[in-house]
């Protein structure tokens, strides 16, 4: 409580705690919206369509890439437009996103190799589609954990930034 020109240190600490709690709410809302289930479903679908398109003959593969790309871009635009909290990503956030993308890509390559071997040895049909399904399901399964890592990164950065 402020009285005249003096302030109780306990009240100052309570105000600081309140500030940190509210800042965490803003960050949590930013992550909650960014990782919301509808955007997950559309992004996963877009990824599956694009990656599975390698099994399709031309010109259907081009059409599938266009459809998947369009879904991804459209979803991103709607997500940005409806965000209750918007902010410019920091360098560390971009780095985390880039690292996750590279990890996903490496995992897709690994799934593709396994699917290609299975295609040669066991006659697995549409092996690109199988690899696409595997990476899409992995992404969906890891989504919650990724969002928690992202939120923790934001919080850590703000405390040390």
């Amino acid at each position, binding site marked *: 409580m402020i009285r005249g020109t003096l302030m*109780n*240190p306990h009240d100052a600490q309570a105000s600081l705690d309140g500030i940190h709690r509210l800042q965490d709410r803003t960050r949590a809302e930013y992550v909650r919206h960014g990782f919301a289930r509808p955007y997950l479903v559309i992004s996963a679908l877009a990824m599956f369509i694009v990656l599975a398109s390698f099994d399709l003959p031309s010109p259907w593969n081009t059409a599938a890439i266009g459809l998947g790309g369009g879904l991804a871009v459209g979803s991103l635009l709607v997500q940005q*437009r409806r965000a*209750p909290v918007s902010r410019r990503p920091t360098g560390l956030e971009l780095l985390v996103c880039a690292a996750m993308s590279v990890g996903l890509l490496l995992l897709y390559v690994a799934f593709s190799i396994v699917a290609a071997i299975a295609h040669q040895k066991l006659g697995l049909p549409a092996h690109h589609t199988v690899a696409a399904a595997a990476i899409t399901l992995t992404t969906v399964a890891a989504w919650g954990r990724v969002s928690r890592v992202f939120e923790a990164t934001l919080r850590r950065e703000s405390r040390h930034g």
Partner: protein
Amino acid sequence: MDPSFDEFLHVPARLSIVALLAPAGWVEFGFLRDTIETSDSALSKQVSALANAGYVAVRKGRDNGVRRTHVRLTRQGREAFQRHAAALEQIVAVARVSPDRADLIDRAEQGQA
């Protein structure tokens, strides 16, 4: 008292708004209202006061026919908030270093009450 302590900003409703805005760019009015648990009119009043002080900017728009209002901290508001938070931290730090001084303030407060 530290001159960077901002009595205008320290009003709980205003400090809550500014604290919510600090880690973000534009923030939706509805999110502020729901998080602070206040009414539209009470929040509007505080946001207007902050805007008049030059601490926040307000943007009104429409999304599929739905009116949406967004608020963000101005540079002046961000600096004022950072100074104010630093002043609060200093009060806490001083009390940690010399608890006697904290007791003195408590006693002086009781004397003023």
